[in-house]
């Protein structure tokens, strides 16, 4: 066998293997294009869609609730992204560059934070929000999501600041710039790629979150997309049109995270690696 043939047969094999790995998600997407009228069929020949049928999407989106939940999710995830960056970026810079007392404590605090599982603090957070009368409050959910992203976002950005040469700042200081000016005019423009990667992470974490949104929101008018989809489409004996809409809704809810992740994967993967070494 020639080298070329071997290369292409191996590549084809790899593509098939990867398709099998991603299949549980691929199958949702494929099924979402089936006709909702014949979604459930005992005939294997009906497993694949006959043609690209967008009826399931039309039906799912016509439920005003799904659009509303997605808008809520978009708001919560965007706010979480901005707040996370506003909190993590200064923390990361201070830990990377400023020699101040208490630095070591903050380092350890982040590791402790990272080690506390979400399920352990979900109940007390619910109790706390009940006491404060903040159940169903989306700003409260944003605060919770933002706190969850702190360790990882700080570590991503810290790696980033560590890679910026100190000479750049020193040149700024010796030109008489203040810390604020150095941050504003030298560090901020250089940290855009790091901010994008950390921001993408925060957005995905918030957009995908089920546990906290499920526990802290119980009014369907304030549901995020994952909680709404769970509440309205999944159940014991749902009819076939709902199954079809569940496929469309699940595809739609996955797209923003999958696209953002694909765009910033290069940066995020590097951070997973240094994160897993640290964590």
């Amino acid at each position, binding site marked *: 066998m020639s080298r070329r043939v071997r290369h292409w047969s191996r590549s084809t094999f790899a*593509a098939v293997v990867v398709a099998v790995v991603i299949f549980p998600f691929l199958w949702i997407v494929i099924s979402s294009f089936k006709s909702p009228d014949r979604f459930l069929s*005992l005939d294997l020949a009906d497993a694949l869609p006959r043609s690209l049928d967008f009826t399931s999407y039309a039906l799912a989106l016509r439920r005003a609730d799904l659009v509303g939940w997605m808008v809520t999710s978009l708001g919560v995830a965007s706010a979480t992204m901005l707040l996370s960056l506003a909190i993590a970026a200064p923390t990361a810079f201070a830990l990377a560059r400023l020699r101040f007392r208490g*630095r070591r404590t903050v380092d350890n*605090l982040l590791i402790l934070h990272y080690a506390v*599982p979400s*399920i*352990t603090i979900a109940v007390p*957070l619910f109790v706390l929000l009940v006491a404060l009368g903040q159940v169903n409050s989306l700003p409260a959910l944003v605060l919770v999501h933002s706190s969850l992203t702190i360790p990882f976002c700080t570590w991503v950005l810290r790696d980033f600041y560590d890679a910026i040469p100190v000479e750049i700042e020193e040149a700024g200081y010796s030109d008489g710039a203040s810390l604020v000016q150095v941050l504003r005019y030298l560090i901020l423009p250089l940290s855009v790629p790091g901010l994008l990667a950390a921001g993408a992470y925060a957005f995905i974490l918030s957009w995908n979150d089920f546990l906290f949104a499920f526990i802290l929101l119980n009014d369907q008018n304030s549901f995020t997309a994952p909680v709404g989809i769970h509440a309205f489409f999944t159940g014991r004996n749902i009819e076939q049109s709902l199954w079809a809409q*569940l496929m469309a809704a699940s595809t739609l809810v996955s797209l923003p995270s999958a696209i953002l992740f694909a765009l910033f994967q290069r940066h995020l993967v590097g951070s997973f690696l240094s994160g897993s070494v640290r964590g």
Partner: protein
Amino acid sequence: MIGRRTYFQAAGLAMVGPAVFLTATVVLAPFVWVVAQSFIEKGSGTLGLANFAWLTGPAFLPALWNSLLISVGSVLVEVMLAVPLALLLNRPLAGRAFLRSIVTIPWAIPTVAVATGFLWLGNTNYGLFNQIGLATGVFSEPISFLGERGWATAWVTLAHAWKGLPLVFIVILAALQSLSNEIVEAARVDGAGPLATFNNVVLPHLMPSIALAGVLSGIYNFALFDITFLLTGGGPSGSTTTLPLLLYNQAFRALDMGRASAIGLVVFLAGVAALAVVFRVSARAR
């Protein structure tokens, strides 16, 4: 004029302030509450170890076993898939970068969609697995993947493994890339076949990464609520009730914050213990 040192001290504290404040209110304060509640008995409100004594009983132990089964099982599946997958995607291939990024996509898929996928694939009458199984004669009757003991555990384990595969894959692929070609070549020149090269050269090099990624993924899956809750809700007859689900049931159904807190503490301590072991072992290996 204040000195530069004082200025940086104040600036440093100001810059970490918001992160410290949020961590303290959203993570540490609830954690302290959990520790305190775990010593308070429901009803009487007396201080004591009753909630921890309850952990030795017939509600907790099966849930602990289910959690261990699902988290250890899913890590085994992840490693057994990730190692060959990383070996395959480390070779020169057409569209290699694209294939690698597809493999990591499950990390970004919301758990509610992960659950949809596995509910649909495993559906008793209409799911693809049953349809193919029945059509090919592998199954004589439809299998209720989510409604039968054993099958439900296997199915939930598989869903956890699918979601957790990307992180393990990324870590193993990175370790593979750090293995120098000369060493592999040298083994080949010395007459080692592909299997001997893998067993004696590649696998030992990967082992620390496999251990670290496996333990981190196991800790994550051990504490994960969403996937099991969305797929089975803990059933059938409690066979997939893991510690996070038991915690949820104790808190929101039985309204027993003491027992829920004791479970939450166990989940936390188990993770810390697993991490301590892996760090002790990897420090000794180095």
